[in-house]
């Protein structure tokens, strides 16, 4: 790993229900599973892939979900679905599924206030700090990919980090932002100072192609920001195949920290930050165990969760963040100057 890379610990009093209210999450998951059965029913349309992080073909099958096989890369430890729906089929799903519509019409809007406070404001500050520190001072344009929280532009605009602002193929109309944002396509952009992709990597057919294309519009010294979920995080490691919020096709790439490092390097980018500032691992495990009594925890985790108070849980969560062991990952990577 890059020796000067940052690690970050965050505390903001975030709770799962703030950004993933149980009723909304349950409905979104139900629709996703139903839609997946409809859109990906034809086994002949599925394609085999190698590790989406390090490109290794060496793998072992580890579990199934919704009839899809999750594999663990023997090189980098990433977990991924293969065979998986073809790229065009996934695009069709995201354009036309009921789950996608539900996400836009209910999920994003109903959680907008909490997301803005807990996530978007910190995303905006984070990106501004990194660009100030290591970005290209002459490239100040910013683009967010497949925007589903247009309020990110309000936060960025208020802080005057970037201008102009672009939303590439927005999922939610940019008119829901009060900031001056232009909806556009990736191929219309170049020389951008920063590009962000929040919670996109996990459902890309090819994270490598996705990041290569995204970084292609950056100016030299420009920064690519993304967040995703890592299989090396505490909740996923503990819950594994019983993780309730992992489902097809939202999570077909669950990269390890090591795999993410390899992926960024394969894309020709320099890691500036790879942190796991997640605040919810412990809470997610607690909720999952309450919901599903069949989940068997190790003796230590069971003891920690049920015989220690919230303060101990918060301390443990901070330990996870500090040592890159939470499942929520954020990455900043710089395109080298030519």
């Amino acid at each position, binding site marked *: 790993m890059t*020796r*000067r890379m*940052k690690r*970050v610990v*965050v*505390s*903001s009093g975030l709770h799962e229900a703030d950004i993933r209210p149980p009723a909304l999450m349950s409905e979104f998951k139900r629709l996703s599973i139903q839609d997946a059965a409809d859109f990906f029913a034809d086994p002949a349309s599925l394609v085999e892939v190698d590790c989406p992080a390090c490109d290794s073909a060496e793998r072992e099958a580890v579990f199934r979900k919704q009839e899809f096989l999750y594999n663990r890369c023997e090189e980098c430890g990433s977990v991924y679905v293969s065979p998986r729906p073809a790229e065009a089929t996934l695009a069709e799903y995201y354009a036309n599924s009921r789950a996608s519509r539900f996400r836009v019409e209910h999920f994003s809007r109903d959680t907008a206030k909490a997301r803005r406070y807990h996530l978007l404001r*910190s995303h905006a500050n984070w990106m501004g*700090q990194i660009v*100030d520190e290591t970005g290209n001072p002459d490239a100040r344009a910013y683009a967010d990919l497949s925007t589903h929280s247009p309020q990110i532009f309000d936060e960025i605009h208020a802080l005057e980090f970037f201008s102009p602002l672009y939303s590439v193929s927005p999922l939610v109309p940019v008119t829901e932002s009060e900031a001056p944002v232009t909806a556009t396509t990736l191929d219309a952009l170049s020389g951008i100072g920063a590009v962000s992709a929040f919670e996109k990597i996990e459902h890309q057919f090819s994270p490598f192609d996705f990041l290569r294309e995204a970084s292609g519009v950056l100016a030299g010294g420009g920064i690519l920001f993304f967040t995703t979920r890592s299989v090396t995080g505490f909740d996923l490691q503990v819950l594994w195949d019983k993780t309730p919020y992992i489902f097809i096709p939202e999570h077909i790439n669950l990269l390890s920290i090591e795999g993410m490092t390899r992926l960024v390097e394969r894309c020709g980018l320099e890691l500036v930050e790879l942190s796991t500032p997640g605040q919810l691992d412990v809470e997610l495990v607690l909720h999952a165990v309450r919901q599903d009594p069949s989940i068997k925890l190790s003796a230590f985790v069971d003891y920690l969760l049920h015989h220690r108070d919230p303060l101990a849980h918060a301390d443990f969560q901070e330990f996870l963040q500090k040592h890159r062991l939470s499942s929520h990952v954020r990455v900043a990577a710089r395109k080298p100057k030519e």
Partner: protein
Amino acid sequence: MGITRARELVKHPGAELVCGFDPVPDQFAAAFPKVDIADSVEHIVNAEIDAVFVCTPNRFTPGAVVAALDAGKHVFCEKPPGRTLQDIHDILAAEQRNPGLKLKFGFNHRYHGGIQEAKRIIDTGRLGKILWMRGIYGKSGGKGFESEWRNNKELVGAGILLDQGIHMLDLFRFFCGDFVEVKSMVTTAHWDINVEDNAFALLRDTHGRIAMLHSSSTQWKHRFNLDIYMSEGYLTVNGILSSTRSYGDETISVARKQFDEGFAQGKPREEIIYFDVDPSWELEVGEFIDNVVNDTPVLMGNSEQAMKAMELVFAIYHNDQQFMASPSAPWQP
């Protein structure tokens, strides 16, 4: 310290380490077996070289720096720049006699990741204006502490404030600029030494902002902590990364003040950034080499900054008349 600097020089592609002088030559020779060892400072400053690094106990510093400058050599000088204010004035006079030569002082804390991050955030103005600062820099002391050369008044001039607290004063100036008012209490609270082991100071800058310093050698656990509170949030640099990590992890905590309705007041969303390496030595030496090779101005650690840090150190001593009347008062020629 000289060996640390020399290691950075050896790594730098724009520099060649030609010669060294060390009162314990075997130590230097073991670290740099292919480098000549001089038999005196005079030998070095008059050699066919471009620059000299002076990393000596305070007593020898001004003499070596002045000799090197007068011999036409650029100079990198470890802090502090001597034992007294007169020492830094003598150095400045030599610098003025030799225009065109570079003189840089080793205030490496400015180059630490946490400090650099703090500076970047402050300079953006996003957390508003600085209201106040509070710096604690303390070391534990230890077995044999009393007999360490750093506590030999004749050799170093004064105690922990001049030796280590000067870094925090330099950082205060890095963030705020000039301080014009000083209130202080200085004491030798514990150790059987004739220099101070604790200094407390309140400083006011030209804009009325107050900085509070505690410099200590009775901290028992090494500690570096710099709080910078601003009108819209705060920064705290905790720990200062060293090879042994004895000052702990180096982190910066950053938060905006948060009075939003509906969210807990007094517990703002805070980010802590961890720094895994200390680039300060490399950056500082690299900058000096750039100053020399490309004739760029010395922006960090220049003679004015060194002089003002020294003036603050001695203002803190002199503000406490009880301390100045004590056996621990600074050395005087």
